[in-house]
């Protein structure tokens, strides 16, 4: 049976306007349609992925399905019920559950079970039955033990599973996930996707997964690509997602697995497409065997230059024995940092890896004295310090040559030298115009600067982040697109020409193309603008592709600091703290187990290069 059916659906957010107003002099319709003639069907029990760049109309699709929005024209039915008819709304909403993007903005209660109960309460289910529904829903998402917990203390993935439970408690037949994984870290994303797959298989719930992660779409029965309010591609995920060029045109990318196979094929080693690390490795092995290679060992260990020269001067960070306690001497006392030692060299593109709560954000906030080094260190002694243990060491924190343990240091000057871009920086924009917002920092730090200087600096900063100064300077920051806002926010930080630029999850929430653009922007800034760039990231591939050195934080400590190559070679250690490894590392590992040892630095480019060398070596040997 057809679960959802869209017929020639058009929708415009300007639909309140009269038709006349939206027609130009020739009587042509010039309305800006968010959905423009969409035909779309989902069969019962199907798992459909809807892909599309930001603003492609995919979220509108979700909201139309359960009547949160009404189409301007066309018909929508859900299990045969007309979704455009208000009489059916209640019934349709019982059958169609939506999980939204931001986990914080969809929970109504402060206790998990109360929140899950919200839906069943709304439709008037008796109390005993609600209890059973809560059991069922929490069990289905694997969150039984959190029944009495407070949502705000859970991780992103857990919050989103609670949101799914809240929807499940209404026993829907269809579940729509509207970019429900976009704001999560890889671990949370996996939690949510696993739950969704299970619901689809075991509970036979029809799933519409709206996403811009190609890897997630690979798991679906069918994929639909949207662009500018239209469905542009439709078919099996493996077929759709291997069309690299076509996807690029819609601001999407193929998954890394397919990209690697395609590039190898193009450059002379025919490898058929693989879906995941296992199949990619297998296909490469097959290809290598037919090229005559069955065993290989790279002896060369180059491409791993690490400058170990200590640094205490400009542009770097030296940190020794840094600890930080939240809510000291209260029942909530927690060690956010517990003796952190690390050095960031001048000129590094440095990566900080770790889970939420590992202390990485706390550490980063120390770098420009948003959190001060505790001066009265005796107070913060751990409770269980044994007698005769060595006395606490002195804390050292020097950033860009400024001593942060010294109270007489000019912290304002430091802040102008250490730029800090927080997660979702676009949410800090506030001024009337882009110019004023970017100039904000500059005026704070250099009140005496002349108008001309300010103008020049703002212009330079905006142009560095790839925006057209003349076109954008007088616009309100709130009328820009998501990607543009983020660029403006970054410009507002680099405008003071910091020596060190720190970014917390700079690519979070962006679509694949936006991600790539931001990362290449950071390399540009690194090359032309700031000496040292530090990024905090959950994404191991991002670290492997971009950083020259990286560190892992776990439980308030530095677990290891090394080049990504060495860091990721130690797969066991990464897994032991619950972290993932880059895709290429996984492939290399399987290859190694089969006798092919490739010493690459885990960037895609290097991996392809080295694999081709292996193939070539096989041919010359043969």
């Amino acid at each position: 049976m057809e679960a959802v059916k869209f017929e020639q659906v058009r929708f415009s957010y300007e639909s309140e306007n009269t038709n006349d107003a939206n027609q130009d002099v020739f009587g042509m319709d010039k309305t800006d349609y968010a959905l423009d003639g969409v035909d779309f069907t989902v069969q019962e029990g199907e798992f459909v992925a809807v892909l599309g760049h930001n603003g492609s109309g995919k979220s509108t699709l979700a909201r139309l399905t359960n009547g949160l929005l009404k189409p301007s024209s066309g018909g929508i039915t859900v299990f045969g019920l007309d979704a455009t008819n208000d009489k059916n709304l209640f019934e349709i909403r019982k059958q169609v559950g939506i999980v939204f993007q931001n986990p914080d903005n969809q929970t109504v209660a402060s206790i998990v079970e109360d929140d899950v109960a919200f839906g069943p309460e709304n439709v008037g289910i008796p109390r005993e039955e609600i209890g059973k529904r809560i059991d069922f829903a929490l069990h289905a998402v694997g969150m039984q033990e959190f029944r009495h917990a407070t949502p705000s203390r859970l991780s992103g993935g857990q919050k989103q599973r609670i949101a799914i439970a809240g929807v499940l408690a209404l026993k829907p037949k269809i579940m729509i996930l509207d970019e429900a994984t976009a704001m999560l870290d890889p671990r949370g994303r996996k939690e949510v996707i696993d739950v969704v797959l299970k619901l689809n298989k075991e509970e036979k719930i029809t799933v519409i997964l709206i996403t811009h992660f190609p890897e997630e779409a690979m798991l679906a029965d069918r994929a639909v690509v949207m662009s500018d309010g239209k469905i542009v591609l439709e078919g099996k995920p493996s077929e759709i997602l291997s069309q690299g060029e076509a996807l690029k045109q819609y601001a999407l990318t193929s998954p890394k697995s397919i990209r690697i196979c395609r590039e190898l094929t193009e450059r002379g080693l025919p490898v058929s497409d693989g879906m995941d690390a296992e199949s990619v490795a297998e296909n490469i092995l097959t290809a290598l065997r037919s090229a005559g290679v069955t065993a290989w060992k790279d002896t060369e260990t180059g491409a791993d230059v690490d400058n170990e020269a200590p640094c205490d001067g400009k542009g770097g960070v030296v940190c020794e024995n840094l600890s930080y306690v939240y809510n000291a001497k209260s029942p909530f006392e927690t060690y956010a940092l517990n003796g952190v030692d690390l050095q960031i060299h001048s000129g590094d593109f440095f990566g900080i890896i770790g889970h939420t709560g590992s202390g990485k954000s706390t550490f980063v906030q120390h770098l420009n004295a948003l959190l001060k080094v505790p001066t009265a260190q005796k107070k913060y002694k751990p409770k269980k310090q044994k007698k005769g243990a060595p006395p606490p060491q002195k804390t050292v924190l020097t950033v860009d040559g400024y001593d942060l343990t010294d109270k007489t240091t000019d912290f304002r000057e430091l802040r102008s030298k250490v730029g800090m871009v927080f997660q979702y920086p676009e949410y800090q924009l506030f001024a009337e115009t882009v110019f004023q917002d970017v100039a904000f920092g500059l005026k704070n730090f250099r009140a005496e600067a002349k108008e001309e200087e300010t103008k020049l600096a703002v212009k330079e900063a905006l142009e560095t982040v790839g925006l057209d100064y003349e076109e954008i300077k007088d616009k309100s920051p709130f009328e820009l697109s998501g990607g543009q806002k983020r660029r403006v926010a970054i410009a507002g930080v680099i405008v003071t020409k910091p020596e060190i630029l720190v970014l917390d999850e700079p690519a979070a929430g962006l679509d694949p193309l936006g991600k790539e653009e931001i990362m290449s922007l950071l390399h540009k800034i690194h090359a032309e603008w700031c000496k040292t760039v530090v990024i905090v990231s959950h994404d191991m591939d991002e670290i492997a592709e971009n950083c020259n050195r990286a560190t892992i934080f776990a439980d308030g400590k530095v677990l290891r600091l090394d080049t990504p190559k060495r860091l990721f070679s130690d797969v066991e250690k990464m897994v032991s703290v619950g972290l993932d490894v880059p895709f290429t590392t996984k492939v290399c590992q399987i290859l190694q187990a089969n006798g092919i040892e490739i010493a690459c630095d885990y960037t895609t480019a290097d991996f392809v290069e080295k694999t081709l060398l292996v193939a070539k070596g096989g041919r010359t040997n043969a």
Partner: protein
Amino acid sequence: MREVAFGQYYPAKSFVHKCDPRIKILFLIVYIVAVFLSKNFYALGACAGVFLLVALFSGVPFKSLLRSVKAILFLLIFMTVLNLFFHTGETVLWRWKFIKITKEGLYHTAFLSARLFLLVLGSSLLTLTTTPVSLADGIESLLTPLKWIRFPVHELALIMSIALRFIPILTDETGRIMNAQKARGADFETGGFFKRVKAVIPILIPLLISAFRRSEELGDAMDARCYAGSKMRTKYKKLTLTWRDVIAFFVVGGLLAGVILLRMHTAWLV
């Protein structure tokens, strides 16, 4: 992670913590009435005795209780000074120009301060032993009779619990925005009144915008989960009275009776 318990709730499993929130709210109201009805130190002493009894059974350390007084310390001092110097009385103890301290003034001030002290301590004991959520539940249940005059009790309670739910989120968000603007050189700590007010704008505007965005998304999420007001709505959690509440009822009833008796028959004490 950096969660300072809002409303200073002190997690414990004491007798007082386990009491029904409705009884606790009623208890506090009666206690406040008793404090106001008290005319002399004997009556106030009785109130203080009841307070101490409850505090003892609450398992809340005295330090936490006193911390709540800190917040109104300024008000307390201000009131004391005002009363001490300007209360008219006959027995003058000390005089400097037009300022004088009288015996009656001294007595009156001590009495008022003690009263205020007891009021603040009592109210903070409620918030220390009751989670905001159960407080909201209690208020909703107590206001139920108002449904008869079409007062939107359910909506009010929902608004209250959503507000409570978003306090930690918005607090975090404020912290984040403040940090971000501080990192861009914003200065919230120095300068005169006007400068400080102006400095708040870069925090307030993003915060407002985010609050609106959040409320819109929450509205959608609630709609999607079939929210349609209070009609035909059921409730999963129901408050039930236990033996603890009966004991609490007798304690506070005794206090009220005692204070009223003291008010009528102070004679046999003096």
